């Protein structure tokens, strides 16, 4: 299968760089997948799970805040946070959700409230996906 170069960059380090066949990206206006030869494309991210498929392996990472830039030969994702799913601290995620809930409660303008609500929904979805993932893994 055709591969392309995928780079996942966080402000602190280069998290991933190498040839992959397929990447599922949580875009702010819906998830999308990128394969080799994708048209030039820039999209912002929402907090969510990014799946990287190499030759027969899949790697899942939690990303938050940033954007994806795709062109036919490379996909670059700049995320403020990028953590492999195995390394996610559930307590930390719970804290994030709590913060987001407070943001919703504290929001003064409608626009801010809407933003915070979306953020909260995204985070909850991630938490759900993670808890499902861990239960299926334990079976």
């Amino acid at each position: 299968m055709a591969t392309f170069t995928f780079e996942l960059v966080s402000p602190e380090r280069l998290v991933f760089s190498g040839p992959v066949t397929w990447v599922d990206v949580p875009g702010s206006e819906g998830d999308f997948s990128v394969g080799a030869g994708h048209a030039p494309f820039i999209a912002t991210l929402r907090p969510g799970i990014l799946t990287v498929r190499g030759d027969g392996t899949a790697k899942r990472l939690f990303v938050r805040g940033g954007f994806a830039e795709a062109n036919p030969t490379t996909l670059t994702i700049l995320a403020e946070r990028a953590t492999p799913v195995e390394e996610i601290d559930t307590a930390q995620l719970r804290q994030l959700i709590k913060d987001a809930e407070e943001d919703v409660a504290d929001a003064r303008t409608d626009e801010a409230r809407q933003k915070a609500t979306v953020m909260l929904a995204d985070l909850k979805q991630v938490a759900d996906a993670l808890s499902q993932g861990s239960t299926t893994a334990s079976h």
Partner: protein
Amino acid sequence: MPSLKDLRNRIASVKATQKITKAMQMVAAAKLRRAQTAAEAARPFAERMEQVLGNLASSITTSADTPLLLAGTGSDQRHLLIVCTSERGLCGAFNSSIVRLVRERANALMAQGKTVEFFCVGRKGYDQIRRVYPKQIVEFVDLRAVRTLGYDNAHGIADKVIDLFNKGSFDVATVFYSHFKNVVTQIPTAQQVIPAVFEQKAAGEAVPYDYEPEESEILADLLPRNIAVQVFRALLENQASFYGAQMSAMDNATRNAGDMIKKQTLIYNRTRQAQITKELIEIISGAEAL
């Protein structure tokens, strides 16, 4: 004329100081390596960010609803100077040279009748700025408790700056930090972050991208993040520069202590010999007198 005991004490104290400066130099060298790696690791993100923002900024035309962070407020009357310095001293002229650049800039702006306010990051710069412009400091961020600089620190600072901007308390923001050129050279640098400036790209270089959501929305989302990235870069550069400056300052101090020990030991030995000679003469002349 100091006694032999005084000289001995003095030499011992200089030796003790030399041990400390030597240890500090080695610690700084080790930390410098880490800070340098961190600064290098942060580079790809900042570069990509700038590239994409540059593309975006050149593709949209300035209109009434262009984000203010890019277009500016239309005036340059009120300036915010973000001064990044270190938390600790013993690093030669590191902090002073940043503050000197800040003061030159501030005085030039004030001479033109503009308002200048300061946002201090790091205790050392805060202390110096406070002495000169006590009433113009709007914020002070202390990073003393921070062991390893993370993106979150920068994010917190950027949030405060953007808050101030949204409240309309300034028009132009400039970050001051020390650019790390190499271990012995650090260059105090000023970089404007609000309104954002991007290098103009040569025409025909831009790739036609599809955007999702709209360009202007992406821009509105990315511009605040870009400020955090710029601040993060400034902080990392600063940290690497700080350890570089500290290393060379401590290297100098160690060498000076070595010189001083040599000089003092020479005086000590001379005095000791003079005293022995004197005692001998006294004994001999005493014996001759009998």
